[in-house]
């Protein structure tokens, strides 16, 4: 593996320090969405980690997705994911997003988030707590740092 230069290292560092998120509801009951919104309030202060909520997928790095993917939203989810510029990550928030939850094998549901887009981190819970969401983001960033360090060594 070739040694990476300082510019690539700086870009890696900045990616860990500034994950901008976009929130998408793929068919959740709104429970997890309330928790995601809760995690964005001043009480939890996600800006400590450099996270900002962005409205457009063009500006976002992390797609925070809730709910089992219904057949209605499947194409929309795929399109939102494709509209995001590389590199991008997907967080599956809540049990339904992880596996389909109680909607598994339902006639109108495609299943968990990973049946449509590649998922970077799963956050179980019904609904997932804001602390769990923040913990997942921090773990995702730490694992990113580890893999970046592993490339260097």
């Amino acid at each position, binding site marked *: 593996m070739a040694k990476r230069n300082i510019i690539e290292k700086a870009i890696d560092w900045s990616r860990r320090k*500034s994950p901008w998120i976009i929130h998408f509801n793929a068919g959740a009951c709104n429970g997890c969405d309330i928790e995601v919104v809760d995690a964005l309030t001043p*009480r939890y*202060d996600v*800006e*400590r980690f*450099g996270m900002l909520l962005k409205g457009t997928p*063009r*500006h976002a790095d992390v797609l925070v997705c809730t709910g089992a993917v219904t057949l209605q939203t499947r194409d929309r989810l795929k399109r939102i994911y494709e509209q995001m*510029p590389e590199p991008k990550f997907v967080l599956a928030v809540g049990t339904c997003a992880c596996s389909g939850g109680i909607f598994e094998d339902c006639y109108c549901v495609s299943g968990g988030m990973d049946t449509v887009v590649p998922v970077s981190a799963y956050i179980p819970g019904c609904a997932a707590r804001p602390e769990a969401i923040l913990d997942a983001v921090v773990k995702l960033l730490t694992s990113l740092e580890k893999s970046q360090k592993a490339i260097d060594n």
Partner: protein
Amino acid sequence: MALAIFNILVFPGFLFLSVYALALEYVDRKMYARLQNRKGPPWFQPLADFIKLLGKETIIPADVDKPVFKLLPVFTLAAVTSAFLYVPIWGTNSLFPFEGDLIVVLYLLTIPTLTFFLAGWLSNSLYGAIGSVRTVTQLFSYEVPLFMALLSPAILADTWKISGMAEFYQAHPLYILLNLPAFIVAIIAIQGKLERVPFDSPEAETEIVAGSFVEYSGRLFAIFRMAIAAELVVVASLAGAIFFPVFAANPWLGFLIYLLKTLIIVAILAVFKSIMARIRIDQMVMFCWRYLAPLAILQIIINLLLKGVLPI
């Protein structure tokens, strides 16, 4: 020649402006966070955002005018940086002062608004189009009060030169108190120009996603963000030079005073950002024409009358 190039590219030109823009963005965000009783971003946050956006993929939509789409962010940054060269930094004199540079600076500061309009309009997105129309609607409401508020101190000082105004008010420091209505109008109109919170309906992320910048990503968006942050620095420097006429002969001391002045203006703007909610575009237009413009006209009348009375 070499000195002029150094001045334009390094200090007080492009490099200093970029670094100070990132620093002021941090101060703004940190103050906003502290006023909301949270910890806020770390000091390197604006830098990390900037580098990250530079390193990201840049998506250009298929049906846009590609050269113009790519050129607009650079054009914005260039206009803002050129405006900065005519604003005094460490003394009463700016880098290249001439009679009428106040008008040139105001004109150059209007260019970003027009490029925001073009950016949204050309990106072939519905949200972008709505944001663009709002940007221009807002331009027509704050621009007239802002121009009148910044030009009425010039009437009293009898010069269109920013450094001339600075010298005049340094010689007569108490006269600046007469410009208090103009200062209030300018601070409110500046928030419209910078599209900050009470007047941020052009890029209201909760209703029209991101307004004009909805299709911009990666490197192009990074330059746009840098231009917006730099615009804050230029506007704060301009307001500081006109409304806080405190300058020092010693360049180091003068530079410290300059930092203090811009920080005060950014602090005022951050407080407004945290205590206000967004107002609708029609409310914004009504407020500007019904209250701000008459107040600015009143200031001009006061200054015209005082010019005959005061010993100058």
